[in-house]
């Protein structure tokens, strides 16, 4: 798995766009929207290499924070000028409202690409980059508000261990969110999807990234991955409650959600 992603790191984003025809951006947007984070949330994004989820999270929290500040200003009608000035100062220095993202990945190359992207796009604060294994996270218990793993969990050898680790590092009340390829139940769509996956994607892999084998692996690992209900049961086994999933695009992708209660 490590080598697959070593090859793939630099071309990862380009390949994502071409394989999914850009829809992966929408899927990730939906994931963050579903999370609906409020300022002050601490997010752990596992297998988040190039930072897609992290950047979306920061954007979302920033805009929520701005709306919050605007609403606060509307209520500042009876304060003295001094107090208003002080609150401006305090809030200007806190555009994220203390929210933070820790991006954790097993692969150094992916993290490097992520850091470069962050710099390039101008994300400076609220981000941390940590090298780590999803099956054995280098974090203390009860630390994070939200744990996300987008298109990463199928690459984990022992999914149950990763789920247990997720449970461990989440605070009570914390949320687990998993965005992953899943099973299409509609038979017609399933056939079209299979056709696309096995014929088109490896070819794209060869043409764009010069690596047919990694993408062949990718497509096969998607087929091997447990379907929605099974993954839901596994998440429940790890101790999560209110586990549910939402199919996107008829099951091509599914978002699973659970709470540590």
């Amino acid at each position, binding site marked *: 798995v490590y080598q697959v992603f070593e090859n793939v790191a630099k071309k990862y984003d380009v390949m994502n766009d071409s394989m999914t025809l850009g829809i992966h951006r929408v899927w990730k947007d939906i994931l963050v929207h579903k999370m609906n984070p*409020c300022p002050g949330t601490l997010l752990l994004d596992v297998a988040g290499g190039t930072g897609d989820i992290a950047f979306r999270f920061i954007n979302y929290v920033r805009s929520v924070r701005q709306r919050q500040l605007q609403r606060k200003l509307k209520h500042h009608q009876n304060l003295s000028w001094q107090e208003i000035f002080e609150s401006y100062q305090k809030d200007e220095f806190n555009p994220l409202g203390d929210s933070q993202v820790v991006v954790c990945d097993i692969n150094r190359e992916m993290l490097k690409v992520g850091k470069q992207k962050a710099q390039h796009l101008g994300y400076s604060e609220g981000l941390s980059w940590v090298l780590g294994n999803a099956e054995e996270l280098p974090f203390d*218990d*009860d630390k994070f508000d939200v744990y996300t793993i987008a298109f990463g969990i199928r690459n984990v050898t022992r999914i149950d261990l990763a789920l247990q680790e997720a449970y461990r590092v989440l*605070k009570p*009340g914390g949320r687990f969110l998993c965005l992953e390829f899943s099973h299409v139940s509609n038979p017609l769509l399933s056939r079209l999807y299979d056709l696309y996956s096995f014929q088109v994607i490896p070819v794209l892999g060869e043409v764009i990234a010069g690596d047919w084998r990694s993408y062949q692996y990718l497509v096969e690992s998607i087929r091997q991955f447990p379907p929605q209900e099974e993954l839901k049961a596994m998440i429940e086994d790890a101790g999560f409650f209110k586990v549910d999933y939402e199919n996107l695009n008829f099951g091509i992708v599914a978002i699973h959600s659970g709470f540590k209660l």
Partner: protein
Amino acid sequence: PLRALHASAALGRASDEHRNEPLSSSSQQHFDSPPAGHQPEQQPQGPRPSYTGQGGQESEDYESEEQLQHRILTAALEFVPEHGWTAEAIAEGAKTLGLSVAAAGMFHSDGSELVLHFVSECNSKLCKLLEQEQKQVQLGEAEKKPVDEFLRDAVEARLRMLIPYIEKWPQALSVLLLPRNIPSSLNLLTSMIDDIWHYAGDQSTDFNWYTRRAVLTGIYNTTELVMMQDSSPGFEDTWRFLRNRVADAMTMSNTASQVQSTGEAVVQGLMGAAVTVSN
């Protein structure tokens, strides 16, 4: 449903029984220690508030998801004046209970559950109040009120519960009117109206059941709307409006009973309607 992983197997609650089956099948897939000892080993951290019945702790800590959600929503009400009926208020509520703000994700992001929870709580409070009053009458400690006074007091008591949240109440009303929420909100409204009539007792108002419900619903809804815009001290304008509406309803009812007996009562009925309209 809550997985009763723990000692609660011994509690023998009906709801636990079907959950014990999936437990025994999943325990075969577990590489770790058997389920009974599973949870405590996983969470050895100190005195963390446990929302699920852990191995050693028995039924006092046992709480279903619904009960926990109930507690979060109740805690969230405190933050409604500041944040409105939103996921933010729910997040703040969760924080006061020691949970992560992400727990607000259990609910809809538009705050529907918070409003519905509040309305249902108010209705329960009203019921308790009316029941107490009824008991007092039965014990002879209080006099039985005439229907119009009873209705007035009941509606006023119920509407007074809105006062702490009155600024954000228009927002709550709009949430209750969302298509998704209409079945629930309608249900809550009708059951409250029914309760009020139930405690009002059967007086000879000569309305049939549907008419009574409709009349009181009309009175309640219109008074609620008036209350939204009322800036008089102690909402006295609202209570005056309420008094007038209840009086009109009584007039109409008296009129209706005469219609059944004499022909000229039709004229009186028209007169009553004209009076109502002119108010």
